[in-house]
């Protein structure tokens, strides 16, 4: 059934037990993103130390897809260089915008590959990208070097 492909156990686990949730200090920049069609929102903070993503903290309200994908984001980017984090961001965006035709690379996206099924539902792609767009915006505000 399509539905199980979308709601992978990994996604439901992250939804029920989100990683890194809650807004923390210190941080360098904060981004607030909202999905105007459904009212889902996320506030996300980034702490950069040198070229490293030292912390990502967030709060918000939204569906299982948006919440789980933000939880996965923190696993993927915290402790990595900004450039590495943006490689993952680009890969995740490519996967989500691929209409189900993109084969995800587990080495790059780890738990993020669970969202491959979401890409088949165009109405939900924005949900999956909400936290990632907040991360991209927050890093830009913090002046991080992304390449």
């Amino acid at each position, binding site marked *: *059934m*399509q*539905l199980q492909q*979308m*709601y992978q156990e990994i996604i*439901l686990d992250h939804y029920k037990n989100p990683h890194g949730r809650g807004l923390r200090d210190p941080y360098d920049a904060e981004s607030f993103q909202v999905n105007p*069609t*459904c*009212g*889902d*929102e996320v506030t996300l903070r980034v702490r950069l130390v040198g070229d490293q993503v030292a912390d990502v903290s967030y709060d918000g*309200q*939204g*569906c*299982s*897809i948006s919440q789980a994908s933000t939880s996965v984001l923190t696993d993927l980017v915290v402790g990595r260089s900004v450039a590495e984090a943006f490689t993952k961001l680009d890969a995740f965006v490519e996967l989500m915008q691929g209409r189900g035709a993109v084969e995800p690379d587990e080495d790059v996206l780890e738990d993020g590959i669970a969202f491959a099924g979401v890409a088949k*539902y165009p109405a*939900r792609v924005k*949900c999956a990208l909400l936290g990632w767009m907040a991360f991209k915006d927050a890093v830009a505000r913090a002046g991080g070097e992304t390449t």
Partner: protein
Amino acid sequence: MTAVTAPLDVAALRADFPILGRTVREGKPLVYLDSGATAQRPRQVIDAEREFLEQHNAAVHRGAHQLAEEATDAYESARARIAAFVGSDPDELVFTKNATEGINLVAYAMGNASTAGPESARFVLGPGDEIVVTEMEHHANLVPWQQLALRTGATLRWFGVTDDGRLDLSDVDGLINAQTKVVAFTHQSNVLGTVNPVEPLVTRARQVGALTVLDACQSVPHSAVDLRALGVDFAVFSSHKMLGPYGLGVLYGRRELLAAMPPFLTGGSMIEMVDMTRTTFAAPPQRFEAGTPMTSQAVALGAAVDYLSVVGTDRIAAHEHLLTVAALDGLAEIPGIRVLGPVDGHARGGAVSFVVDGIHPHDVGQVLDDQGIAVRVGHHCAWPLHRRLGVPASVRASFYLYNDLSEVDTFLAGVRETKRFFGVA
């Protein structure tokens, strides 16, 4: 009265709607519960539009050839039937591109009134004047007024909403007062289903000389609405929510008001005389229909009101009431459901919005969709209302004449399945 109370033959009606025969999501029969967003169209409406295009298509109100005559007749005949459907006359009905544009037309005309002639004085707004709306409005009947207030310096005020989803009418005389110039409110909430009492608001608005603007998008398709009997000054409704095509809204305005109101959009078709420095305007409704109108759409909406009239708006309302009460009763038996708006059928239309404890509306909608059930999820263009009720979004099932009780059962089973899928007790 037997004709009014005779139940609808839904199976026969459904045969008129080709799309209801299709399947979705790997072979599931479509259960279409999103008519509050847009209604499906019967063959009679689709055929009327095709027949116009195949036999009579021409630009209306210009040209002297036979097709131009036929097209103009078809267009104006549609206007007359649509006007009769809502208890008004054809010269009081303006075609717009959608209901949203109809509300903007009034709001912008009021904004333009300050630079128009003395006949437009009653539409002028400025600092010290007040515009009254409600907290349950669709954005289409909130944002244009909010922005008009910002442009003119007028103050926006609003009726609050009670916890059970009714308008808080405890201070009608305070909110609508000597400063009030406009009272804009919905006839039937697109989220709560609440049918608002028009009479006390119109009565008070008249006492203070304020104009009333009724958003009838959710009432005209689903019940017998007589705009003149309601006594409102302006009203809007939407073609595609009442079996008609997209790209067409209808603005009703009382004759003497339309006659005194300056135009919103200007250009071709809306003029009386033009020279290089000045223009005089055509009489209503043409004054408000600049440019080539949406002709085949108007013709098709004419066919839609014919269809609704034959079925009978009172019978449609009674049928939807039955479905609504069944849905409300069924949801009440499922633990962890909160219905937004009235939980009984009194003064309530067929939009049933709700939240499920522990499951986001988007996720509820996704599981329902997987079973072939089409509902709306999100804030339904009523973000302030959702904020007032303390939820970010909701799930909305909305009914129309072609839905039946078995679909309500499928929907209720779908909600139970959603809870099972997400492991919520």
